[in-house]
């Protein structure tokens, strides 16, 4: 009996076309940017020192306001590229910035236009596009998240099509008056030892301000066994917190760190906002173990710019006051001498 074998073929591809090497090749060239690139060209002057405002659109607008920002799209390949440009929505959930699928309704997408909506680039060329975001007068207060996308057309072939797109994030705060203040607290520090034996500190970070935060920072250990200190160890990045959310920020340490107890000093920041806390931690001996969380206390930052400015201003004020008093005394003395 003839065995009928029906093949369930997923993806008919052209046999001769370059099926991308499934074998990992040499590490990619570090210096060149490949494919389709996008970057922000304009940033607000009053956020000049905020590192987040250099790579994302971060702004606060009153209802009825409009902002315009330019982006630059680049073709880093040796052939021509076409890209469609548009704004899509995004959400922040579980500590991650999650862009929405194309076509998902979003307020930010409705309020935005990108001109031109499509660019054709020759090899190694760039083109600028203008993104205009107009906030309606009836917009509710709060934050909106989105991405300015540069999207490649689908790959060719009669089977699997791939669409790659790359974008610049938008964190837009809407509300009358000034920007809501940003702030966060570290609710607890927990020392654990991972299944692979690496000690880790997990900090529960609570966004108590009015704007989303992208957390980064480092942890230092001091006053350890025999007076040892260690670190700083960088915190794992990628935690984005919406206002009101609490999410963990983890700091992996080194296997050379033994139990403790240690005084852990955690310094976290988002953009220009920085906070530091200290707590006593002891790491469990066995892999997979976790110590109970401890409540840390807030400590002042070293080289706090505000403190230095305040001290400098106070001292200058006192000095000028002293000089004026001396001048006044001189003048009175001369008045008395005349009389």
């Amino acid at each position, binding site marked *: 009996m003839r065995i009928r074998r*029906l093949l369930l073929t997923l993806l*008919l591809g052209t046999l001769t076309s370059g099926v991308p090497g499934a074998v990992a090749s040499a590490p990619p060239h570090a210096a060149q940017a490949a494919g389709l690139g996008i970057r922000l060209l*304009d*940033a607000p002057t009053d956020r000049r020192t905020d*590192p987040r405002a250099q790579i994302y659109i971060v702004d606060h607008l009153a209802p009825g306001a409009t902002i315009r920002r330019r982006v*630059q799209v680049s073709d880093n390949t040796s052939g021509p590229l076409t890209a469609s440009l548009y704004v899509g929505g995004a959400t922040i959930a579980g500590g991650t910035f999650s862009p929405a699928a194309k076509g998902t309704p979003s307020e930010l997408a409705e309020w935005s236009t990108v001109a031109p909506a499509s660019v054709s680039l020759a090899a190694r060329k760039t083109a600028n596009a203008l993104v205009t975001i107009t906030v309606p007068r009836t917009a509710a207060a709060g934050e909106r998240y989105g*991405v300015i996308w540069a999207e490649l057309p689908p790959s060719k072939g009669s089977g699997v099509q791939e*669409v790659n797109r790359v974008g610049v994030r938008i964190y837009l705060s809407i509300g009358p008056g000034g920007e809501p203040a940003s702030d966060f607290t570290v609710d607890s520090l927990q020392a654990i030892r991972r299944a692979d034996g690496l000690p880790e500190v997990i900090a529960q970070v609570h966004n108590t301000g009015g704007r989303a935060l992208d957390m980064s920072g480092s942890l230092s250990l001091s006053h350890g066994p025999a007076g040892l200190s260690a670190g700083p160890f960088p915190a794992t990045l990628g935690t984005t917190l919406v206002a009101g959310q609490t999410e963990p920020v983890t700091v992996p340490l080194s296997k050379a760190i033994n139990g403790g107890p240690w005084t852990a000093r955690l310094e976290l920041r988002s953009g220009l906002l920085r906070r530091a806390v200290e707590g006593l931690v002891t790491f469990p001996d066995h892999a997979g173990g976790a110590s109970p969380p401890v409540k840390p206390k807030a400590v002042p930052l070293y080289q706090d710019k505000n403190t230095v400015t305040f001290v400098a201003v106070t001292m200058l004020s006192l000095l000028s006051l002293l000089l*004026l008093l001396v001048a006044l005394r001189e003048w009175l003395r001369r008045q008395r001498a005349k009389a």
Partner: protein
Amino acid sequence: MRKILIGGAVIAIAVAVAQPASAGTTGATFTLSGNSSGLAVSVPADGVNLGSAATGASTLSGSLGTVQVTDTRGSLIAAWTATVSSTSFVTGTATTNETVANALISYSSGTATKGTGQVGAMTPSVGVTLGAPAIAGIWAGTGNNTVSWNPTLSFTLLPSQVAGTYAGTITHSVA
């Protein structure tokens, strides 16, 4: 005496001016310099073939092809998130048995390779289902980075899956 008075007044004025400006002008922008291209994603290759299976098979897996992300923003805190989403894969007239729903498709990024000397790591994705957009990988590090990975797609097939060539679209979003 006059010199002391002037000295005191000058310092008093300097103190008044030295106060940090409380509110900048909104709307004023400056241009970011630098000739980097920001964040870039590779152009996918044409004609990807995920393979084939006999009818009655319960799963099918294949490699999608390398995705490469190049970040030349030079940020102290360099981070980007790659998200992946998929349509359903259909053949013929897309009836129930001619469809593999996107919730039955799972994506694993596999280990990512980064350029030599680059600081950071990509958290990979393992077996995430594509019923809704999912995280393909999250990069965290410092400075420029070039990261590539070759993801594997796994399809869970129905016992009644109809034979044919199935087509669909996988979208990678990097921001």
